[in-house]
């Protein structure tokens, strides 16, 4: 066991897969010798060389288009988009090409690829470098969507994403890069579509993703002190969605709170809410509550950004207001 940061886990997860399969390659802006602007790809260029770890021009359509073409012709490429906000610059390739091509060609084309991107706020970067856009990806049929919250999950879910024969959008959370955890040596391989119960509880289910998981966990600690037992579920992947774990939890607790960093409208919690209302309604003892970033662009100033992104205080207050 060694202590590993989330940031270093990204490189370790990629290295594990590149070591295993020579068809795994990585391209993106400053990902090679520079090791990535977030230092998430450090050491990969030195270890795997310029054919497999490549810098690109600042051409997001070309980066993501090129990994699509490479996947069509036998590689298992990973493309890095420096910030998830930049998905908007290559959304055609992601949403119209990558997501749809298998279906539109009647299954002729397989696209085993991973789009890695730094998502989320908390770094005072402002509205174009801090958004949480996991719900954008979730809205497009044909994309798998992953957002790990711990270093160990980064490795295991990276392996699952690279090995998956479908396109995966892999959201790394900027606020979590420095987070540390004891992680065992050796290969770690997880699977997509399995949520994890981070904190078992019996009075309320709090569902969270990525950086919101620790917010929910902090809330659970505070709630416990006042005698409320909160179960915290880390969804880990939005597509496929582990509705079993979710519905089973709600059937025990009777209460549900979602904690979402994406802006309110059509955030992933709305889909979760709809599923629980349709399929778990008779287990509910109170209306579902969604705690989300408001429906605004994200501001830069610390005081404003902190107000915008859900906090453990907001989650605690939401639970305490429930009947």
């Amino acid at each position, binding site marked *: 066991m060694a202590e590993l940061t989330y940031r270093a886990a990204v490189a370790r997860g990629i290295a594990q897969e590149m070591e295993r399969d020579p068809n795994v390659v990585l391209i993106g802006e400053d990902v090679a010798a520079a090791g990535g602007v977030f230092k998430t790809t450090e050491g990969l260029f030195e270890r795997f060389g310029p054919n497999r770890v490549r810098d690109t021009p600042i051409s997001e359509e070309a980066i993501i288009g090129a990994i699509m073409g490479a996947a069509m012709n036998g590689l298992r490429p990973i493309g890095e988009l420096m910030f998830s906000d930049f998905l908007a610059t290559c959304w055609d390739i992601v949403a119209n090409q990558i997501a749809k091509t*298998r279906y539109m060609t*009647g299954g002729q084309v397989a696209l085993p690829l991973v789009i890695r991107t730094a998502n989320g706020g908390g770094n005072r970067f402002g509205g174009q470098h801090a958004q949480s856009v996991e719900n954008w990806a979730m809205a497009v049929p044909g994309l798998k969507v992953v957002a790990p919250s711990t270093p160990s999950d980064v490795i295991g879910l990276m392996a699952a994403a690279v090995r998956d024969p479908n396109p995966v959008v892999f959201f790394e959370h900027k606020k979590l890069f420095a987070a540390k955890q004891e992680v065992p040596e050796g290969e770690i391989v997880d699977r997509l579509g399995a949520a994890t119960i981070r904190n078992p509880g019996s009075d309320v289910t709090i569902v969270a993703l990525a950086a919101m998981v620790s917010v929910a966990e902090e809330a659970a600690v505070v709630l416990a002190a006042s005698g409320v037992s909160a179960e915290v579920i880390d969804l880990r992947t939005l597509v496929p969605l582990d509705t079993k774990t979710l519905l089973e939890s709600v059937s025990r607790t009777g209460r549900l709170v979602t904690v979402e960093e994406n802006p309110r409208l059509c955030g992933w919690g709305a889909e979760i809410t709809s599923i629980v209302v349709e399929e778990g309604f008779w287990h509910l003892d109170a209306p579902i509550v969604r705690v989300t970033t408001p429906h605004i662009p994200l501001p830069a100033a610390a005081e404003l950004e902190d107000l915008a992104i859900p906090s453990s205080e907001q989650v605690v207050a939401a639970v305490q207001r429930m009947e």
Partner: protein
Amino acid sequence: MTSASVDESTRLAMYRDMVRARDFEQRAYDLFLEGVVQGTTHLGLGQEAVAAGFAAAMRPTDMTFCTYRGHNHTLLRGAPMPALMGELAGRKTGICGGKGGSMHLTDVPNHAMGSYAIVGAHLPIAVGAAWAGVLRGTDQVSVCFFGDGATNIGAFHEAVNLAAVWKVPVVFVCENNLYMEYTPIGDVIAVEHPAADRASAYGLESIIVDGNDVEAVHDIAVETIERARRGEGPSLVEAKTYRHKGHSRADPGKYRPDDEVAAWLERDPLTISRRRLEADGVAGDTIDAIEAESMIEVDSATEATRNAPPPDPATLMTEVWADGGSEWRN
């Protein structure tokens, strides 16, 4: 002018290809008017020499990427005609099972790697596929066809630049048919030659070819494809051509001056090729036989399509994922 490098059997094969593409698309047009072909079509009638000249210069494993105006390219890489016709008509027999339609004809077994309906989107994809071939040592070249209009979209510039800096084996082929939908190139393109005048921006040679002369196209195809295969990087070819019909569906193309249309119809690539073959002593019977065989093939594909059932409703929910299904939850 007769190209010294093209032997007679290749010239006949290219003529046959052009005739097949012509007959297939003319039939697609008729079937569209009849309501058998659904949705939309973008015909390459008049542009067959570009498709035939390149197809004849490619190895079977070389990859074609084309646009919605790609019936001819897909057919000439070897896609079975009944499956293409079936796709246009939304039948179960369609090459994509009816899920793609006219704008998405794809035949991976023959390395026709897709028809793309978002202008310019396939250029970076073609680059990536060619790059993968280099890493895997497959010796493949990507040939990527697009219109004059695509040279104004960002993906064109991103892709050509990336291909040039990575020295990727891809040949970009701009089919300059002088119009993008209803807009003539002079109204919206800052240079006279949409592709060729931009080549120098990426350190590439400026290449313009008569896109209605199949032998000239073939010559440039051989040269650029072999250059790519030798590891000397991409080329950007501008093939000047013209569409005989409107942009799509039943568009009569009235925005084009009559004398311009007449002049280009005079330069029909099939007429040019046939006259040249005859002048070089190929028997008229040989050429007539090629034309008759093509019509038989098109008639039979039409018959098969008319008799084909619609897609099985169960296929609505298949092939989103590699496991064949579309499930997004447990």
